[in-house]
């Protein structure tokens, strides 16, 4: 089957951060230097060329960008400055937008002003919403933080969390389904039997929790920091979704719950600061280029982590009003971050990446690499 080229694709990808791919002249140094690239999927070289040629459909159905963890060796080695690592990053953003059925992802990635406006708008709505809720339906008294008559009762926030969580999970699931359709049901994909799907299912939790593929890169540091960030994030998520009541109780420290929160907070703040510092200093190839969405993600994450810590400390320090205000400010960061990042932006790779490993293994088992 012939593939129709879309000559505008390379221009489109510029919005997603792949600005140098046109310089590639297909020497293959990138793939030769990459520890993860293999016979089954030769990346970044193949994806670079497909992008240059505007082969949109095959690119949409490739898993290659998700198999790369961006150690940056390829970009260091590239003789033309074509930034294959950043091109793969750009393709991951583009694929995220392709998988997203709402079109919001594309909108946010293509315009940083829109993304910023969306964050600010959601923050204001959230702030106003929680303040209104606190005064009208909640405790009504800003100086009560926990227990009976709390300004924002843990029970109500919990319901809000779960409603939002289920909605986001639903959207992300649909996007994951689209990813499956593009990559596993395309013209080039080999048919995979249901039993195969079951047999390889353990790959999903394996890659999700260990990210062991990342460890195969020569530089182990990015794997370590990435793992710490992911586990901290995950810990925090579990605490909020299941232990919100304990988290919000006090002012005594509940060590069974809070100790996890402290560890996760340390992890989040440390790695976020390290990452921000890396992106400013640009010492490593993988930090040399930053898309606007990278900055917003990191800044939001740092903001959310710090406000979370501060409201906790204020609560313990016996300043419930300040704690409540900080709590609202914290939620003003949490809601836009989750709403925008989980199904439409960077956060979604927590789902796409393990899925890609799983699908790639299935394809290979079915006798055909991606």
């Amino acid at each position, binding site marked *: 089957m012939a*593939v129709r080229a879309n000559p505008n694709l*390379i221009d489109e990808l510029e919005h997603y951060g792949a600005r140098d791919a046109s*310089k590639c002249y297909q020497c293959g140094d990138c793939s030769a230097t990459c520890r993860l690239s293999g016979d089954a999927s030769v990346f970044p070289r193949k994806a670079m060329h497909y992008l240059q040629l505007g082969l949109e459909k095959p690119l949409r159905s490739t898993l290659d960008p998700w198999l790369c963890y961006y150690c940056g060796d390829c970009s260091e080695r590239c003789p033309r400055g074509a930034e294959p690592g950043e091109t793969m990053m750009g393709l991951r953003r583009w694929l995220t937008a392709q998988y997203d059925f709402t079109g919001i992802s594309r909108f946010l990635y293509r315009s940083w002003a829109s993304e910023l406006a969306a964050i600010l708008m959601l923050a204001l709505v959230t702030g106003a919403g929680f303040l209104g809720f606190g005064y009208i339906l909640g405790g009504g008294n800003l100086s009560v933080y926990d227990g009976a008559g709390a300004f924002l009762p843990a029970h109500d926030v919990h319901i809000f969390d779960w409603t939002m969580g289920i909605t986001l999970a639903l959207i992300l699931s649909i996007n994951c389904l689209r990813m499956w359709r593009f990559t596993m049901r395309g013209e080039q994909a080999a048919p995979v039997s249901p039993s195969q799907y079951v047999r390889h299912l353990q790959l999903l939790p394996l890659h999700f929790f260990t990210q062991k593929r990342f460890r195969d890169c020569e530089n182990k540091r990015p794997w370590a920091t990435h793992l710490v960030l992911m586990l901290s994030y995950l810990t925090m998520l579990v605490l909020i979704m299941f232990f919100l009541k304990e988290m919000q109780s006090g002012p005594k420290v509940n060590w069974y719950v809070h100790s996890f929160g402290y560890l996760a907070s340390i992890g989040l703040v440390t790695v976020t600061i390290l990452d921000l510092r890396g992106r400013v200093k640009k010492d490593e190839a993988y930090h040399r280029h930053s898309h606007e969405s990278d900055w917003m993600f990191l800044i939001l994450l740092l903001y959310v982590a710090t406000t979370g810590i501060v409201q906790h400390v204020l609560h313990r320090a016996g300043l419930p009003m300040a704690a409540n205000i900080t709590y609202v400010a914290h939620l003003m960061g949490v809601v836009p971050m989750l709403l925008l990042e989980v199904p439409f932006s960077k956060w979604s790779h927590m789902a796409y990446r393990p899925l890609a490993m799983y699908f790639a293994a299935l394809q290979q088992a079915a006798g055909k690499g991606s």
Partner: protein
Amino acid sequence: MAQERIGVYVCCCGTNISRVVDVDAVAASALAIPGVGIARAYKYMCSNPGQKTILDDVRKQELTRVVVASCSPHMHEITFRAAIQRAGLNPYMLEMANIREQCSWIHDDAAAATEKAIALVHAAVERVKFNEPLESRTAKMCASTLVLGGGVAGMAAALELADAGQQVFLVEKENCLGGNVRRLNLTAPYLDSARDLLQSWTARVERHPGIRLFLNSELTGLKGFNGNFTPSLRTGDGETLELEAGSVLVATGYKEFDAARIGQYGYGRLPNIITSFELESMLRRGKLETKSGRQPRNVTIIHCVGSRSQQFHSYCSRVCCATALKYALEIKSALPDAHIANLYTDMEAFGKGCEELYRKCSEAKTSFLMYAKDRLPVICEAARGDGSEMIVNVEEQLSGEAIEMPADLVVLMVGMEPREDSKQVARLVNISRDKAGWFIESHPKLDPVATTTDGVYIAGACQFPKDIPESVIQGRAAAARILAKVAQGEINIDAVYSEVQEKLCAGCGTCFSLCPYGAIEIDEQKRVSRIISAVCRACGCCAAGCPAGAIKVRHSTDEQIFAQIEGVL
């Protein structure tokens, strides 16, 4: 022959010869031949001590003839001729026996090789006994030059020669100077205007007192020989004219490949498929549009049209890759939103500044699709909903995908081929052409501007596809070659040539038709052939072909040949 004393010198050539051939046995065997006064073997005969040995022997032992058994005469005949001349002998009293290329290098069996070397030395000794002292002669060298073709190569040479104070006759078939460069817009890789490049030169050529310019004119005949040609011209006014020129420079250029010969490209059938020269003229007019007057959004450039192909020309036309890159930038600067796809077989943009040009094109997001030489792209008319004029189908080699490329304009990079009149020109000036029809140079590396005919030179793309700087270089190199000859004032005529013994000649003309150099004239009045010794290369065709045995080749007489045969037996 009793008073003759022959010296035989057997060279070891380091171990090149002595490794296989027993050189002492060869020398000992030579010493036994009647007439041989001395025979020696030595490590390197061509070295200064080796030559000195010969020189001293000739003087002290009063040798009259010399045989050197060593390498091919191509290698060192001139060396040893000069050596015996320094010793007071006529240089033609030398023979060489090739016991290296024809013996030691090609045989393993030492005994048989030695036997063969002995036979070759015997043959040379027998032959040298019949060598005669010969003297070379000189003829006058006319300082003026005829230049055929007013393109960049011809103009470069004409200006160089005229600036050196010599008369130039510049003959151009068209009504203006500039050749194919006149058809270009910008030039690769620096994007200089072709018009500006030409303007300074055409103005100088037209005004130069040393250059007589003949526009709309062509060469109709060329008589004479090196240093003494008489070309006849037909000028624009229909006059015929005879000139005198010492040298002839052929700089007649090339023509472009006819794209209609490749049926599947549909050139001439689909309206928006154009050749590179048609694009040049669009760019010159500043009007880049499809036949229906729209601005093209997608432009596809197909490389190697007629070049590097089994069916058409096997050679690479050398300038098209860089030119195609130039187009990508020119189109991009005219239409910044246009996408340019280069369909190439191999990217061969090799010259100075071309790698940078390639890079610039990549950065300008030109896409490069590699097609296989035996699977040419196929151009189809687009369907209504396609949003483009055409669809180009390529089996892209690096991705392995069959790709449909939308295109509003397809540019065919037509290669270079010899002009239709190249055969006629070659016959007129007596030079040869290769299989494709390009003029052949005297030596591909060491003498790339001369031809096998003395006094006739070639420059520019009539020899092979060339870019502008290369054509200018070759034009100027030819001028330097001609000026060196002019500076000598006269030409040397080799002492070795054929002679007609008029008493025996019946004027049958057999030799005239056999001679590959055009060195024979028939004197109609006396009914005899005459050989122009300056043109004759002593190949011997005439002598071998003459039914009356009336032709003698100096330095390869029947006596010498028969004696040599006797010697080898």
